[in-house]
């Protein structure tokens, strides 16, 4: 299919690029999200590469490699950090570990002291460990990945629901519109977080059910907006023209009205993304989010604020959260400015 952006969109993208703060945030943010997809390579207890007795192994992805393969005396999964020490006085065999050689679940305990352990380069715990000895950096990175994909999926689903119901309300009007107006009025007055807490205290949610629960109470904002916009667009001449030419309802909605509203929908995306991350983190913080031991920012935040003397836990999660959320806010501001330019007169 031949695909070309129309000049107006090109101009908007040009304007977005010219807002440097937002544009660089966008590039950096995309990069971080892409990197997080390959977190297994950066943060893992499995080695990237093992060269043993002339054969090469890449244990990162794929099945568990038992210790026997590398000449160890056990048949459960190889402990690569031990193996590294084992190989040290051996010139023929070698092993390459990821930069952070821990996964998000294992407890790295010491015999001499109790966790949490402060940051230490010697132990490769660059941000220390949490209260049960799990690596903070590993949990932070995997927690980010959980949060961002949670938020992205939530965004797609809630936009699908919001756009379709909103467009239908605006386009068809009548009884359908009236019915959903009442539902939205009730829904928008429900104390959002409180009810989600109640629901997820009843059924311990997993990744998908938590999305469903938040979706259940989070679809209205865009719906209301779409309704208004569709309502306005419907009254314009081009819709009438399309109808006069015999276009079906679905053709009018999907080929004529939606493309004219899409630029406004885009300006909402960064803000929904941020609120998805915040919603998950808040729920995890309160203990109503994803079940333990899923790595999550909210869980780290609650651990950190309960153990203020272990400053590294709370400060690392707060710093990463601030950086990510401010970046998303910059992107949102830039997109809004690019898509909806308001020229102001200023007086000297």
């Amino acid at each position, binding site marked *: 299919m031949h695909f070309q952006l129309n000049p107006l969109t090109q101009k908007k993208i040009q304007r977005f690029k010219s807002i440097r703060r937002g544009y660089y945030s966008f590039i950096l943010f995309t990069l971080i999200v892409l990197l997080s997809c390959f977190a297994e390579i950066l943060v893992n207890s499995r080695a990237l590469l093992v060269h043993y007795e002339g054969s090469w192994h890449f244990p990162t992805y794929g099945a568990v490699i038992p210790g026997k393969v590398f000449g160890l005396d056990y048949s459960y999964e190889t402990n690569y950090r031990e193996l590294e020490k084992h190989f040290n006085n051996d010139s023929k065999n070698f092993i390459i570990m990821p930069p952070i050689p821990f996964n998000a679940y294992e407890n790295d305990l010491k015999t001499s002291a109790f966790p949490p352990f402060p940051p230490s380069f010697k132990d490769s715990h660059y941000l220390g460990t949490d209260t049960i000895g799990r690596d903070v950096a590993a949990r932070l990175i995997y927690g980010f990945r959980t949060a961002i994909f949670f938020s992205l999926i939530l965004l797609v689903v809630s936009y699908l629901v919001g756009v379709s119901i909103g467009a239908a309300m605006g386009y068809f009007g009548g009884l359908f519109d009236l019915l959903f107006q*009442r539902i939205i*009025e*009730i829904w928008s*007055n*429900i*104390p*959002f*977080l*409180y*009810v989600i*807490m*109640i*629901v997820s*205290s*009843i059924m311990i949610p997993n990744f998908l059910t938590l999305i469903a629960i938040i979706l259940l109470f989070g679809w209205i904002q865009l719906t209301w907006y779409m309704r208004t916009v569709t309502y306005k667009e419907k009254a314009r001449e081009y819709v009438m023209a399309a109808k006069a030419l015999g276009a079906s309802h679905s053709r009018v909605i999907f080929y004529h009205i939606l493309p004219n509203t899409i630029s406004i929908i885009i300006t909402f995306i960064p803000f929904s993304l*941020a609120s998805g991350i*915040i919603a998950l*983190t*808040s729920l995890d*913080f*309160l*203990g*109503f989010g994803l079940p333990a031991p899923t790595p999550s920012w909210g869980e780290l*935040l609650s651990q*950190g*604020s309960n153990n*203020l*003397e272990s*400053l590294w836990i*709370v*400060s690392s999660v*707060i710093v990463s*959260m*601030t950086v990510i*959320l*401010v970046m*998303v*806010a*910059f992107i949102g*501001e830039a997109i809004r400015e690019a898509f909806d330019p*308001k020229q*102001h*007169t*200023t*007086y000297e």
Partner: protein
Amino acid sequence: MTQYFIRRLLLIIPTFIGITILVFVITRFVPGGPIEQMIAEAQQASQQTGGGLNGAGIGASTLDAEQIRELEIYYGFDKPVLVSYWQWLSKVVQFDLGVSSRYSEPVWDTIKERLPISAFYGITTMLITYFISIPLGYWKAIKHNSHFDHVSSIVVFVGYAIPAYVVGIILLVIFASNLEWFPMGGFYSEDFEDLETPWEQAVDVFYHAVLPLMAYVAGSFAVMTFMMKNALMDNLAAEYVRTAIAKGIPFNQAVKHHALRNSLIPIATHFGNNISVIIGGSFLIEKIFNIDGLGLLGYESIVERDYPIVLGVLVISAILQLFGNILSDICVAVVDPRVQFR
């Protein structure tokens, strides 16, 4: 206009019923509800003292079928959902929210105890927010694109991006844990009753309130400042301000007497929304600073499955929010005579 508001007030009733019936039904389909909690508790109690818990008729070692049935009648679990909802609702209308299953105290009394604490924070936050946002937004609009505008934008942006409770944790880490300037939490000190003068008591309350208030304000001032700035800039660009300046009115007066007054309209619209934000956002901040307010009560009652209180808190916050919405519409009508509600 009066007609419109009467209609709005009447519409509260179906909305209120919609909200409460939803949550009521949810709480009914719950494993680990109050009865199961009580069975577990009675088992524990029998190992220790064998004492009765409350008027529900628990005394013996563990609960037999007869007692469970009595409990079900007591909580209305023996009837269909809608019937017991109707019973609950008709009690609520008489200001009877039932009895807490944990504290065996009337829910209404518990809420009455906590409500002033949340209200204190809510109202103070609102005052401070207006006090900061209106002048700040004003200066940012007047000095648009200046150094001051850019620097203050960063502060506003960070305040906008980070949720209020995270700001609360940051403040706690810096000012309470490390510098030890302010207490870690609570509404007042333990020796509050011994403080001699009301003045000392007030000082004590505000001393405890500094950090939570900063967190609350951080959560709400950013949006308000942006709103003020944008509204004022829109008005400054409007024809009538240009006319005023063309007529020779000094710029300052044109802003103060013409543009500023019109810019306050969106701020007034936001007034009612604030009520709900304060109620909704307060779980997190109240939990972090361990303030015995409505939010913490709601949170604890969910954790402990104390459904009479869960529903009670919901009733109060839903009513506050519904009235808040109407209140903000009234505010808009008062400040802007052009607005016609029909």
